[in-house]
């Protein structure tokens, strides 16, 4: 598998580390225990196109959001995490 890092270009799998589904969002500080449980433990485990967190630790150390088909391993999009680099985020 090869992932096109938006910063570095196409690189081989060995430079990246996988975390998992990028859909679950960390609940706010006042969220219920149930919401945090859902975030930490439950997964859609999609058979098909999924958005995932990958880390380019063997390269530029950017966290990436990779859109990948879990049935074919085909990668259709890669974008940097919101806070990769120094871009201003939010207010």
């Amino acid at each position, binding site marked *: *598998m090869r992932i096109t890092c938006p910063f570095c270009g196409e690189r*081989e*799998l*060995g430079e990246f*580390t*996988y*975390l*998992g*589904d990028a859909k679950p969002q960390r609940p706010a500080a006042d969220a219920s225990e*149930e919401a945090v*449980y859902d975030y*930490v*433990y*439950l*997964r*859609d*485990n*999609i*058979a098909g196109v*999924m958005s*995932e967190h990958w880390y380019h630790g063997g390269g530029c150390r950017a966290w990436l959001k990779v859109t*990948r088909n*879990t*049935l*074919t*391993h085909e990668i259709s999009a890669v974008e940097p995490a919101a806070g990769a680099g120094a871009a201003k985020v939010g207010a």
Partner: protein
Amino acid sequence: MKYSIFSLARAALSGHKNWKPTWRDAAPKDRYDVVIIGGGGHGLATAWFLASEFGIRNVAVLEKGWIGSGNAGRNTTIIRSNYGLPGNTGFYELSMKLWEKMEQDLNYNAMVSQRGVLNLYHSDAQRDAFARRGNTMRINGIDAELLDQAALRKMLPFLNFDNARFPVQGGLLQRRGGTARHDAVVWGYAHAASELGVDIIQNCEVTGFTRDANGKVIGVETSRGKISAGKVGMAVAGSSSRVAAMAGLRLPIESHVLQAFVSEAIKPLIPGVMTFGAGHFYVSQSDKGGLVFGGDIDGYNSYAQRGNLPVMEDVCEGGMALIPMIGRVRLLRQWGGIMDMSMDGSPIIDKSPVDGLYINAGWCYGGFKATPGSGFVFAHLIARDQSHKEAALFRLDRFQRGAMIDEKGQGAQPNLH
């Protein structure tokens, strides 16, 4: 049809023309007391135990392809009960005891071979962790031995003791561990269950659940029509999330690919099962002569049943680091299975939140060794609506309660278990 050397000899006289199918290839009936989804080892074992131990014989096993086409037919055939945490220790030993009498139970030779499972250690910290685990095993009445380097040099002189990046220092040995012929386990359970009246239905894919007004599952929809059922059990590791989703459930499970490899057949070289403690590599040698080996999962969600080169290289690096005499042995075949990786590395055997639906899932890469135990406790749960005592901790709600069974201590990150 009873199998023995005598029946074989008799059959030989007639040119083996009189053998009957090993199991009946049944067509679906309208209704069963219990429908098991998944014709792998776990599903077929569950059916056999329902019929033989719990007196429930109106049972169907539904398989979307051919029986044993999932992980039962693509694993590395290891059996062991060397677990360290409450919940796992007793359960896997229950399973091991069932392995030890399986062939006589089933009248089928699954080639259960207790040639030993050896986990190697390479540091004091690893030795201490193995000591803790081995003592747990002993306290639970399971055989375990802690071997030092001198003992290993005698036993396995070909290991890399002297020229290694991480020299082998010793190992935790379970002599009762070993291997079994994976396909034969499937066929053996199918054979025995079929003899007791269980319907084994191949090429029958479940496409949905039938629910009553209260939401209770009362049957399944399949590629071969609707089938109603008193209870439905799912034993579809690798596809658990997909099947559970048909009932509106989300599970603490991710699907990951695990590769396995076999070498060309060679004369006996490696006696038992061994695992490298300083890398991702484990190996045994099949009766046919192939080195059967594997390592870590590829590490990303996948339903593709095939892996990539980095893990393949990683596994072979581990193999060469541990056993440098296998350099010229050739890798013959590579394949991948889809693992139900749970959030703590341990399985789930429980009633689901949906009435009438029972879950057997989350086996990670350890499902094969659990086959008989899993079948037994799952049959118990379905028949009695109560967890067997050795499966009492495999509850689905344990993550909500914080009662994880995390042998590796990696937390809620399935690809690290």
